[in-house]
């Protein structure tokens, strides 16, 4: 049996471990429910525009209609997907230490690096599956309710962008899981970083809108959530010519797209390297819970 096969066995194991968790299903169902809710709201607005609705909004609605699949696909991205990946990866390593099952796994003919790679790729494949689920569902709903839809040829691009951008919080939670080796602490730490990033970027954005000072926005780009949340939107902005309106973000410049892509890569690499160093250098700890 070669290293790749051993990694593949651990990937399969990670799927079984994650699928045994009911709360993960609940979170995915919640994300899907939010998608459906958005459709219901938009469908209502399209069919029964409220009296007195500003013409700009009405026009924006009409412009958005052929691109509803983008709205749908990107809606769960910023918040729910980040939470889902944190839940997937936050207990990946730590639960094995807490339950003592890491002893059983790592006393088998497998290296620590193969074990970690299998665990990480297991989380990544789960993320890819959930992203595929929400993406396909979004597109199907858009086609059923708001046909015809335009620019669907870019669907693979947006899917890959979603998966790529979520590597930041997947890797962050995975790192906490290995470094802290306490599942609850790992979840709280990863969610804490995520929420703190959202709050700080919101504050910086608000200060920017009051002062007009670009510096605040530039600083907010360094936060982990900026690249993670915006990269798929920037990719779509680059590929699809959507008129700017209140429902779809305007297209971004190439520099922001590149910067978001680089930040996602840099954060991901840093988090994985820290987790790897911790795993390789330290003992396999026994039950801590």
């Amino acid at each position: 049996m070669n290293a790749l096969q051993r990694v593949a066995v651990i990937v399969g194991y990670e799927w079984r471990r994650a699928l045994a968790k009911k709360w993960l299903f609940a979170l995915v169902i919640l994300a899907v429910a939010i998608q459906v809710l958005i459709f219901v709201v938009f469908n209502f607005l399209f069919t029964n525009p409220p009296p007195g609705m500003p013409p700009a909004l009405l026009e924006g609605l009409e412009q958005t209609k052929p691109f509803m699949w983008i709205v749908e696909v990107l809606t769960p991205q910023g918040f729910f997907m980040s939470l889902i990946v944190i839940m997937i990866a936050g207990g990946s390593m730590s639960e094995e230490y807490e339950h003592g099952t890491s002893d059983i796994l790592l006393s088998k003919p497998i290296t620590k690096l193969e074990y970690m790679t299998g665990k990480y790729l297991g989380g990544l494949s789960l993320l890819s599956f959930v992203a595929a689920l929400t993406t396909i569902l979004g597109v199907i709903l858009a086609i059923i309710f708001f046909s015809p839809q335009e620019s669907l040829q870019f669907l693979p691009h947006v899917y890959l962008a979603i998966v790529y951008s979520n590597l930041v919080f997947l890797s962050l939670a995975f790192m906490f899981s290995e470094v802290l080796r306490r599942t609850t602490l790992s979840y709280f730490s990863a969610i804490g970083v995520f929420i703190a990033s959202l709050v700080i970027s919101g504050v910086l954005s608000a200060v920017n809108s009051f002062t007009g000072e670009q510096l605040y926005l530039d600083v907010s780009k360094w936060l982990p959530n900026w690249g993670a949340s915006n990269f798929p939107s920037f990719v779509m902005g680059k590929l699809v010519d959507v008129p700017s309106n209140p429902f779809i973000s305007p297209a971004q410049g190439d520099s922001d797209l590149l910067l978001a892509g680089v930040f996602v890569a840099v954060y991901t690499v840093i988090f994985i390297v820290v987790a790897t160093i911790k795993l390789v250098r330290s003992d396999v700890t026994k039950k801590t819970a």
Partner: protein
Amino acid sequence: MSSQSVITVSNLTKFYGDFKALDSVSLAVEKGWVYGYLGPNGAGKTTTIRTMLGLLKPDQGEVQITGINPTKDPVQALQSLGYAPELPTLQTFFTGEQLLDFMGKIFGLATQARKERIKQLLDLVGLKEWGDKRIGNYSKGMVQRLSIALALINDPVVLIMDEPTIGMDPEATAHFRNLFTTLSKQGKTVFISSHLLDEVQRICTHVGMINKGRMVFDGRIAQVLETFTQQWVIEAELEEVTKTMVSSLKKLDCVEDVKVDGNKLRIELKEKKDLRGEISSEIFKRKGVLLSLNLHKITLEDAYLRALKGGQ
């Protein structure tokens, strides 16, 4: 260390912070041995085992399993090893069969081979009816049995067991003791950490004793009994003990001393021999009526306690 050694531990030292958990521990276990590893709680037994498996990194020293260092090459070193941890917690989301199948995959067993092996092992550990049930529904004893099945999935050359019969009922305990003996007769090496001295004395060929992180004895079971035996004792209970009887017993060449406690005699022997015949003859000569006569050889427990005392 012999070239036949399947497990070789050389000068193993391990610190937890400032605490020295293992202090230059060395031992060698050869093919076909059943090696009992004894020590009080916190002596360093589990630390030794976890270091042997490469789960802990030694601060000094080295471990070799079939000649390979598990820290440097875990894939090769652990390929022919089976391990059952103390009070295992298994993955409750699997059924017994699924967990065995998963472990079989890690060892690279082919699908058909896994299927056959799983059936065989579930039967062997008495879980045939429970293979398709989730482990979450197993009792502690059943988890322990499954853990032993997991350790055997790869038909290992070396079997390392940390307190393997804890939580098992007496029938299962006897069954697994027989199993370990059978495995050793098949040429497998069995390393058992246990605090059940009776268990070790029954099934082990060799014994290692550790106390406060230091090896205090390493050798054959018979050797440990010999080393720590001072004398054998015969205890006799009589209807009545007389002074002439005590005095005549004391005069026997084989008797070191006789102590009286009511109608009981404690006769300490000079030789490690069963001399109940001679003692009873002497008592009958003096018109004594024997109610009971027992020979007390040294048990492993006595030897163990003396070894620990000596190692401190």
